[in-house]
């Protein structure tokens, strides 16, 4: 060991010696350094997927706690626990253990509620993340594979939700299970077989809770975890896409390194997500199964709804006409088949294949690492909004009885509002979105050409009034800006180019002395007023020298 001690750069501290020993055996220094140096763009919308990841982790941990006490059995027992209004009632062991979990296990109700809120948040965050990916074109080559994995994970999260919703075996979940059974039965040819394969007999049988349990706690989460790993590995391998902006090209990524800046942010976000889930779990009651009662196929309650992410299927079922197709020879395709199996199948197929569809339609097969703003791709944005409207309207239809009840509208009227809206609204939204996109683009071009509206009205010696614009860059002889339209955000207010001087730091409260900022800036000239004396007016009524905004525009971040 004496030889190594003389080598240059040899480890001296105990920690670095240990690290060296470790690296000698596993050779990890290189990959770890590369990973820690990975750069993440710092736009807020890149954190949406992380919210989903953290919600999943919280659901995983809280769910593990629940498995210690939950008994996934359909054996009939007589409840003798803490909750008085159900004492002595016959119920399945699953429901009884879910009640015990809520009333007799220390922290059980909190964990159950956190699990459920985290699950709702998980799917919601996936949807929001998916919308960000869609509307910014982040799914384009080379990221189609990650898009596909994402869609599969979305479907898996829905299956996780459905199976989890069923487990407590209360009256609400049993009603949902009855609908699942009916959907399975509605599939032509294989329906009965599929039902028997899953339920091992007629509804409800004695197996289904146990089967859904193992799917919910082992099969689906295992697949999800594997897919999350692949999703993240592909993301690291392909590097992040980023929004266009100063210094950002197809060949670089501008942002923070994984360590320490991004790691700090990610940890912070994990704690924020955990805080929101824990806050909801402690303050807002979710799925009070003791109020629903044990499942009994003879009973059903008004306002039995699925969790929000299945609401669109409930809605499509509610508004679909009762069009049973009776075929010769006693065969029937029940109307239920279309709004559930067909609609859901079509929606997720189109979603999964969208990158390929778009590539086919636009002929754009190039690799893209710079994102697009939604306004710059009006057709895609409008198609997305149209699909979103369709989805949202189905979801509204899924709660139509609650809306009818709370707002005193006839349920029949709500059904027709759902039917007409789901056909009429998406095209209207398409047209509106398209116009808005074009309008936003046009305004960007307008600012690039003429500059920012300053709000200053000036009177010329001839008596003419002109409005003074602040050009964003050099101008030609007509006073028109020469910056090309690049798809990056364009400053629209003087404040964004330093018109109001540097912003005082601090999000909630100032973290620096406002007076110090003032002092610092007193010596500087202010945007327009600075060049006022020397400014010469052109014949078009515009300043002849476009001039850069004073002090180089936006408050600078050092990392840019």
């Amino acid at each position, binding site marked *: 060991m004496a030889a190594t001690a003389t080598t240059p750069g040899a480890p001296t501290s105990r920690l670095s010696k240990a690290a060296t020993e470790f690296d000698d055996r596993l050779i990890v220094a290189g990959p770890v350094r590369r990973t820690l140096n990975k750069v993440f763009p710092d736009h807020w919308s890149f954190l949406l997927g992380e919210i989903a990841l953290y919600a999943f982790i919280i659901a995983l941990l809280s769910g593990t706690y629940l498995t210690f006490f939950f008994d996934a059995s359909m054996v009939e027992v007589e409840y003798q626990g803490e909750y008085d209004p159900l004492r002595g009632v016959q119920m399945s062991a699953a429901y009884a253990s879910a009640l015990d979990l809520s009333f007799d296990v220390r922290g059980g109700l909190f964990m159950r509620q956190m699990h459920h809120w985290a699950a709702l948040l998980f799917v919601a965050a996936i949807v929001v993340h998916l919308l960000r990916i869609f509307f910014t074109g982040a799914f384009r080559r080379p990221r189609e594979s990650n898009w596909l994995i994402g869609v599969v994970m979305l479907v898996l999260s829905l299956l996780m939700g459905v199976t989890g919703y069923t487990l407590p075996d209360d009256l609400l979940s049993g009603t949902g299970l009855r609908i699942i059974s009916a959907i399975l039965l509605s599939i032509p040819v294989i329906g009965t077989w599929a039902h028997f394969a899953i339920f091992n007999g007629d509804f409800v049988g004695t197996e289904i809770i146990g089967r859904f349990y193992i799917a919910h706690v082992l099969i689906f989460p295992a697949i999800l975890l594997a897919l999350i790993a692949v999703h993240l590995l592909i993301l690291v391998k392909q590097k992040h896409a980023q929004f266009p902006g100063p210094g950002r090209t197809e060949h670089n990524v501008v942002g923070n390194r994984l360590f320490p800046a991004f790691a700090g942010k990610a940890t912070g976000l994990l704690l924020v997500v955990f805080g929101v889930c824990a806050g909801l779990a402690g303050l807002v009651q979710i799925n009070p199964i003791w109020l629903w009662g044990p499942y009994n196929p003879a009973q059903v309650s*008004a306002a039995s709804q699925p969790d929000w992410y299945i609401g669109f299927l409930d809605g499509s079922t509610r508004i679909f006409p009762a069009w049973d197709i009776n075929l010769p020879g006693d065969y029937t395709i029940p109307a239920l088949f279309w709004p559930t199996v067909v609609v859901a199948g079509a929606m997720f197929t189109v979603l999964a294949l969208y990158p390929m569809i778009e590539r086919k339609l636009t002929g754009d097969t190039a690799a893209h690492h710079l994102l697009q703003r939604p306004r710059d791709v009006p057709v895609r944005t409008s198609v997305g909004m149209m699909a979103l409207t369709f989805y949202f309207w189905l979801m509204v239809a899924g709660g139509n009885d609650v809306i*009818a009840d709370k707002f005193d509208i006839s349920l029949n009227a709500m059904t027709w509002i759902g039917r007409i809206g789901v056909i009429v609204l998406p095209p209207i939204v398409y047209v509106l979105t398209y116009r808005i996109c074009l309008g936003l683009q046009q305004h960007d071009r307008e600012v690039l050409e003429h500059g920012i509206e300053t709000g200053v009205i000036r009177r010329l010696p001839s008596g003419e009034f002109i409005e003074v614009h602040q050009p964003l860059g050099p101008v030609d002889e007509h006073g028109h800006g020469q910056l090309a339209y690049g798809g990056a955000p364009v400053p629209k207010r003087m404040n964004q180019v330093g018109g109001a001087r540097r912003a005082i730091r601090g999000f909630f409260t100032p973290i620096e002395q406002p007076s110090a900022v003032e002092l610092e800036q007193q010596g500087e000239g202010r945007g327009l007023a600075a060049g006022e004396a020397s400014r010469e007016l052109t014949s078009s009524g515009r300043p002849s020298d476009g001039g850069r905004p004073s002090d180089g525009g936006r408050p600078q*971040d050092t990392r840019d």
Partner: protein
Amino acid sequence: MSTTNTQSDGPPADARTPDDRARVRRRSKQRRRVANVAGLLASLVLTGALYSVFAPAQAADDTTTESAAEAAGRELYENSCITCHGSNLEGEPNRGPSLIGVGEAAVYFQVHTGRMPLVRQEADAPDKPAVFSDEEIDQLMAYIQANGGGPTLPSGNLRDGDLAEGGELFRLNCASCHNFVGEGGALSSGKAAPSLEDANDLELYTAMLTGPENMPVFGDNQLSPEEKRSIINYVQSVQQQADPGGAGIGRIGPVAEGLVIWVVGVSMLMFGIFWMGSKA
């Protein structure tokens, strides 16, 4: 008659002369006549007495035996109800149903929950603050009960049933319209099953007994009085029960929960990541 005569007025065996015999015959004929008249009179009196005992008396009582409460009730009825329910409780086509046979139970429910008098004809009679005072409601009940008959109010503690059994019966018979916990729900064509949140015991009982609006009648054959009391016990216990999990958000399940996760959960996190973005 003849046997009586024979016994009492039979000719004596020792009557010797024809005169005597004639006299005896004459006298017995007289007696028979008197007895016949008396019998007729007696049977007439008996029939009259029986008639006066068994015959219905209301025709004669019409103006004389109405109690003060019934009279007051009649006045209220004629002011507020007669337009739709008719002058003899027979109902009016397309306006209101007959009240014959609905009983004081129906009057109590309809008037005490403010459903009657109706503001306007629509799909459903909404509950609203009662128009009549408790005393006036008693008077109306007396009037309708006296003139139409029907189910009467129960007495005693209406919550002395079995709690768990009440829950089972509630889920079986009531939840399909009134929701698991009595939050109510929509029915077809603008009709609705109301929330049971502020219903009192008697309203719950009389509603089951009389089946107001779109509700079916749960007569004592379908749900015995004990079962009704169990259901009332369950409904009121659950209403008063605190929500152990925090804010109840209407206790209507997934619709409200979905709203909360989007409006509260997702928007709080969006705020969080905007904040992080601004700290970058």
